Every structure is written in structure tokens, then in C-alpha cells.
């Protein structure tokens, strides 16, 4: 009796261009957040969106790649993004202790 995987069956019906469009939208949202928002934590979230947009692309493309190189890269990206987030939060915490704010417009000692 064949096992039926509903998720897989649905997935295989979705053409590649949908994934590319979704990841492009995710990337644009992330980019917009980074450019527009002034809170350091929110900007960080925007950066994560951009990284994950790239990840979505990598995994979607690797469906057509017998070696699954894209998925391997995706794993590396997740690890690197985690390491980056650790450093980022440490820096933001330090900045908060010194400046009492995480608003990027107010963290501006250099211009004075």
C-alpha cells in the first residue's frame, strides 16, 4: 500500500517561479524594513528576512539539482545567521547600556 504524502504532492505542483517570487517579496520586505525602521532590533529582523529569502531561493532551486547543493548551503546560512545574531544582540545590549536607547538616530556620538 503506497504511503501518501499530502504535503509533498501539493509541493510538486507548485512551479518554481512561485518560490522565486515569494522569496523576492520576502527580500524586498526585509530590505524595506532595514531602510525604513530606526529600531536596531527591528532592523535586525529585516536582515534575518533577507537571509531567509536567500535561503528559500537556495532550497527551491536545489529541487532541480540532484546533488542538493542548495540545501547544504542553506544549512550553512542558518548556522552563520545564528552566529551573527549572537554577536548582534551582544552589540545591541552593549549599546543599550551606554546610550540607554536602541534608536539608530539617537546613537550618534560621532557627529558631535
Amino acid at each position, binding site marked *: 500500500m503506497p504511503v501518501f504524502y499530502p504535503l509533498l504532492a501539493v509541493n510538486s505542483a507548485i512551479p518554481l517561479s512561485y518560490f522565486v517570487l515569494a522569496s523576492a517579496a520576502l527580500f524586498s520586505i*526585509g530590505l524595506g524594513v532595514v531602510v525604513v525602521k530606526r529600531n536596531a532590533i527591528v532592523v535586525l529582523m529585516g536582515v534575518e528576512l533577507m537571509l531567509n529569502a536567500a535561503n528559500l*531561493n537556495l532550497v527551491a532551486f536545489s529541487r532541480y539539482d540532484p546533488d542538493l547543493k542548495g540545501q547544504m548551503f542553506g544549512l550553512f546560512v542558518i548556522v552563520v545567521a545564528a552566529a551573527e545574531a549572537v554577536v548582534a544582540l551582544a552589540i545591541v545590549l552593549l549599546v543599550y547600556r551606554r546610550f540607554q536607547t536602541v534608536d539608530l538616530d539617537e546613537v550618534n556620538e560621532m557627529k558631535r
Partner: protein
Amino acid sequence: MLSIISLSLFGILNLFLGFLKSRRVLLPATLLFIALAFAANLLDWNHQYVYFRDMLRTNNLFINFSSIILLTTFLTVAISRSFGTDEEHTHPAEYYAIMLFSVVGALMMVGFENLIMLFIGLEILSVSLYVLTGSDKRSLRSNEAALKYFLMGSFATGIFLFGIALVYGATGSFNLSAIGSYVSGGPTTGISPLLYVGLLFILAGMLFKVSAAPFHFWTPDVYDGAPTLFTAFMSTVVKTAGFAALYRLLTVSFTGVYGLWWQVLTGVTVLTLLVGNITAVYQSSVKRMLAYSSVSHAGYLLIAVAAKTPQSPSAILFYSLAYSIATITGFAVLILVAEQKPIEGRPDERYEAFNGLAKRNPLLAFSLAVSMVSLAGIPLTAGFWGKFFVFSTAVDRGMTNMGMVLVVAVLMSVVGVYYYFRVIIASYLKTGDSEPIGIRPLYRFILVLTTALTIGLGLFPDVVRQLF
């Protein structure tokens, strides 16, 4: 390859050395580690190896670039001190270890054969530098610089990574030569537009890391806010590794679409030269001037990349070497001079701080003068030959393509003379206070060594160039 593995292990070893009561062993140990890695690196001379299923490739070009990186790291570590006066809150072992780790990233960027390695190398280098930038934990400016560097840097990483994903979508591979054969082999359906977009995204990410205009806006603030020692480290190692990676990526993978990227790069080059040199003129702080000067030197290096002649790698190598040595000397003198008379607890980095330096310490003044002359590109110094080799690659490419860039580059070198000579004029012709400045023996040795190298390479450039 051995150098990458040994540096990673040495970095961890360094962390353990931090547990020792005495901290005096750290500096010699780190210097020894770098020297060992340098020696291990040379073992592969004249051999070609490919490691880990086409992930890394070592050849003579790799060894040349990594030797320059290791040499600059050695010089930077040698001029480092206790990282602050307060024994309780300084962590020299960690900083040395992070520096070694970031060099591992830089070496991976030089030897990558696969875009995965490029990405990971770039990230190891960048994340280490975010930490080092913020290492002066109690300084507001250092914290601010770290935050800015991190946000801008990870933004650039996001763009860079998206570019890699698109190139993967177009070519189905991360391998440099596989991408190269797709691009130049001319697939039957034509090159996918995804590849062009991906290439532009990757270029934007890489140009950001080497601080080329219009992606340079983070450079002055970050270089200014970071502790001067790490500014020296950033402006030399990242530039060398970034240009090695950029050149390798563009020539191995994207030679087939040279018509697309040389135009982008020449535009960026002209902009970088103009912005870097002209803004440097208006700075009142020497540290900020050196930051803009590093932007302008990215412009000169880009000329050699955009020209893409067989001489380009050796031109990039020589220029990076000359630039790195002169920049380290400049920053080394700046560190000593700036801490003599702090203003409001901060080192005094204005031009005025250099007044009368020749009387206070002739060696400092002389090595500063030689390094500035070399950065300006005056003959009899290494910097002149660096510029000469870079400009000659542009001439080889042809005046119709590169003529405009050459004109701008030559004009801007003249502008450069103005702001570099301001420091020399301050130290030799102006009068300041006459309190002498003392130097430690190792510091003195490094200054003499870099000055001798700058003059030596200026007199006999072929000694090194025949290796390249």
C-alpha cells in the same frame, strides 16, 4: 591549507593561554603562531592542491596573497599593547584569538573554489571584525561604530547571499569553474537573466566589504570609532582579502560576461576615487583622513580588477603589499602620537597633534613621512610602484576603455599629495610642545622594519615582483 587549519587551532590555544596568570606570554605566543602559520603556508610553494571536493584551491597566487595577509597581521599584533590600562576589564587573549580567527576567514576568501567557502570566509572575517570594532567596551564611539558596522555589514551580506542564490538558480552550481563554463560556454537558451541580477548583487556585497563608493558610507564612522589598532587591521587585511576574492570570482567565473561588469566596475572606480580623495581633503582628524584614504586606495585597486589583464594579479598583490605596510606604519605612529595628550579622555587625533613631531621623536616623524609619501605614490617608495603597476594594467587594456579612469586616477593622486603632506608639514615645519615620546623596543623595530620595507620595495620592486 595547513595555515588555515593551524591558525584555527592556534586561535583556540590562544584562548586557553588567557587562563594563565601572566599575560606577558600572550604577545610573543601570538607572534609565534602567526610566524608558524606563515612558514606552514610557504610549504605548498609551486604546488597546486584542491581540498575537500573542490572547496579550496591553493596555488602560488593563494600563497602570495595569504603571505601578505599574515605579514600585515604580524605587524598589527606586534604594535598591539595591553588593550587598555585596566587589568580587570581587558581581555587580550580573546582579542588575539579573534584576530587569528578573522585571518582564517581572510585566507578562506583568498583560496575559495566554491561560493560556499567564499560566503563562510567572508562571514568569519566580518563577524570577528564586528566584535573587534566594539572591543573598547566603555567607549561610546566604539560601541556606536560596532553597531553601525554590524547593521550595514549584515545588510550587505544579505544582498550578497541573495546574489549567490540567484547565480545558483541560473547555473545550478556553486563551483567557480562550473559557473565559469556555464557563463562562457554559452548555454543554448542564452544566459539566464537571473545570472546578471545575481552578479550585480554579489558585486554590491563585495564592493561594500572593500568600501568602494557608493558603498563606502560606513567606512569613516567605523574606522574612526574602532580602536586604532583594529582600524589598522581592518583597513589592510579586509582590503587584501576582499580584492583577492573579487578578482578570483570575476576572472574565474564571470570572464564570459566581462562586457557587463567592467563597465560597472569602472563607474564604481571613478566614483570611489573622486569621493575618497576629495572628502579626505576636508577632514580635520588624521584617523578620518586615513579612513577616506583607504576608500581612495580601494579605487586604485579596482582599476587593476576592472582592467583584467594577465598582469592584474601581480599589480593587485604589489599594491596591497605597499598599501598595507604604509598604512600600518601610519596607524602605528598615530596610536603613539594621539595618546600623548588626550582631550576629554579621548586620544587627540587632529593634525595639530603632530605639530613638531620631528623634534619630539625623529624616528616616528621619519617613518610617518615615508609611509605618507608611499601612500601618496611618490617615486622611490613602494607606493609609487604600486600605482605604476596598477596604471600599466589599465594602459594594457586600452585607452578607449580605461582612458577616462586613468585621467581621474592620475588627477586624484595629485589631490592625495595635498592631504598626505599636511601630516608631514605638521611634523617637520610646525612647532608644537617639545616633550619627547618614548617607544618600546619591539615598536621601534616594527617601525624601522616597515620603513625599510617601504623604501626597499621602492628601490628594488623586482625583488618581490618576480615572486608574484
